[in-house]
């Protein structure tokens, strides 16, 4: 039997029972549609979250004071933690793969200007922060590259702070008080939105040394490092560790590479996507049972045809292939319809909720169609085997 004749025969068998085939294929379509839609949403979520986390750049390493250990002893009990300093950050800048460092100190304080006051998050950072964290400046400029210990009292406002304090009037050059200290506004930022509930626009940036004075601290909360795109984050982290151990005498700090963080995050989200897809798979299973049912009925109804085909010299294996082929054709049609449903559904979803865009990858779509075919194949095995097992004499007598 020629391949195209085989295909035509099976398609004709399926299409001759229009309503029945349509309903059966719908079962598969719903299953595949659910799988595609749910995995698209999962993928979309993954893309969305990863994009949120990489908006500050990707080649980042952060160093925090205190060693994360598995020993359950609080750091306060034996407090031998030596704090991170601006000098640590300066030294780390000497590692060749490190492009820049940011010494970070964060706190809360009131900021006031001409009678208006607002409590907001204050970030003590270096001039390099704009580059390392990929800040977009809306007006003016970011903090100047002053000597770290003798920085001038400039402040850059987040978009929300600027809006609240100054409204539509000119902010650049204005004097503001932060925790009683006077600062001059040198720039304001583009809106960055929220990250995990933190409003990034409701914050202001001042030089690290000023923040240290403001909060009366002599150490940093964190050092952020930007390394070159080509270098491996683990090897850079290794060098950072060496340098800091040499300076501190022991490993009293923790290094987190963003690569590692994204890997973990991506893994979690990937598992979530898979789990959600598996839930959609349950409806696919129901669709498979539908095919099994309808193929069993078809084999019963067409016993005479099976007998005829055997009398005309068709072998058992070919009967098996014909009925398997029908099950697969049913499932494949359902699968294609399901792809349309799923892709259309996720398109609609991203239209309704633009913040969480669904993302259908072609590999998922291809895998879904393949899955439909496999479901058809599995569902078809039992009825097809029964068809192939018919004795020709018995089968011919059936009509």
């Amino acid at each position, binding site marked *: *039997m*020629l391949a195209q*004749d085989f295909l035509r*025969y099976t398609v*004709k*068998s399926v299409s*001759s029972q229009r309503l029945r085939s349509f309903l059966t294929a719908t079962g598969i379509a719903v299953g595949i549609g659910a799988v595609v839609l749910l995995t698209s949403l999962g993928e979309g979520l993954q893309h969305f979250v990863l994009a949120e986390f990489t908006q500050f750049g990707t080649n980042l390493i952060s160093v925090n004071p205190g060693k994360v250990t598995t020993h359950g002893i609080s750091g306060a009990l034996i407090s031998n933690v030596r704090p991170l300093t601006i000098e640590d950050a300066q030294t780390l800048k000497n590692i060749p793969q490190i492009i820049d460092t940011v010494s970070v100190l964060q706190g809360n304080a009131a900021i006031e200007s001409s009678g208006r006051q607002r409590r907001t998050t204050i970030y003590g950072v270096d001039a390099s922060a704009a580059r390392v964290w990929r800040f977009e400046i809306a007006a003016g400029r970011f903090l100047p590259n002053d000597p770290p210990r003798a920085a001038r009292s400039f402040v850059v406002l987040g978009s929300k702070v600027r809006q609240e304090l100054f409204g539509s009037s000119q902010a650049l050059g204005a004097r503001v008080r932060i925790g009683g200290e006077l600062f001059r506004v040198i720039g304001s930022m583009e809106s960055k939105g929220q990250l995990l509930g933190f409003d990034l626009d409701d914050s202001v940036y001042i030089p690290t040394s000023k923040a240290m004075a403001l909060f009366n601290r002599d150490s940093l909360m964190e050092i952020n490092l930007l390394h070159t795109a080509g270098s491996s984050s683990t090897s850079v982290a290794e060098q950072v560790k060496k340098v800091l151990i040499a300076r501190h005498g022991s490993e009293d700090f923790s290094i987190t590479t963003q690569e590692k963080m994204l890997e973990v995050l991506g893994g979690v989200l990937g598992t979530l996507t898979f789990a959600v897809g598996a839930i959609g798979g349950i409806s696919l299973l129901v669709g498979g049972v539908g095919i099994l049912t309808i193929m069993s009925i078809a084999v019963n109804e067409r016993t*005479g*045809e099976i*007998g*005829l*085909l*055997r*009398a*005309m*010299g*068709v*072998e*058992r294996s*070919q009967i098996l292939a014909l009925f398997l082929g029908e099950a697969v054709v049913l499932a494949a049609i359902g699968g294609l319809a399901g792809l349309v449903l799923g892709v259309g559904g996720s398109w609609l979803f991203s239209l309704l909720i633009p913040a969480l865009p669904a993302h259908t990858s072609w590999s998922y779509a291809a895998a879904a169609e393949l899955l439909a075919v496999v479901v058809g194949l599995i569902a078809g095995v039992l009825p097809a085997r029964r068809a192939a097992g018919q*004795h*020709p*004499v018995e089968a*011919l007598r059936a*009509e």
Partner: protein
Amino acid sequence: MIHLQHIERMFMVGEEEVHALRDVSMRAEAGEYIAIMGPSGSGKSSLLNILGLLDRPDSGSYELDGTLVSGLDEKQQAAIRMHKIGFVFQFFHLVPRLSAFENVALPLILSGVKPDERQTRVTAALASFGLGNRARHRPDQLSGGQRQRVAIARATIMQPSVILADEPTGNLDRSSGIEVAEILEELNRQGMTLIMVTHDPEMGKRSRRQILMVDGRIQ
């Protein structure tokens, strides 16, 4: 040429053993026209099933055109059915969703004949059976006589050496029955061996040789 020797066939029907064929031996030369007759349950159909390789005897040998086909495996027997044997059934056994043309083309499709060759052979066959203008009709749009003619066209499209007909006129009115019998006899005149099971004495008389079966034996 058909040569059966000492064919035995037993069935179990529930607890009971039914001896369908008892020591059946027969010969049919190429081009013969034989009617197998007898009361129902006498083993006519069982014999036809053995002749058509649809069933295997419990013992005995079957030789067809010089080949000992009773010794062949299932695959080889299927090939013999495809190329050497044409079946005509009482209830036509047309595939309801296929047109007359497609029904006749079915053996060619199954044996892998190319579409353009199929086209010419099936068109010619339909025309010679007076079905030229019925090619696109489905079986339920055809009369009983037309259906059986389609079935005969299908049975002979592969140019078999033997036609096995099981009550081919049993489901037809008198005039259609005679029409169908004449078609089969014409094919027989062209050289195909025709073996027909019937319990209609009128049909039996038309054949050149009758085999009477009673209780699983040839009388």
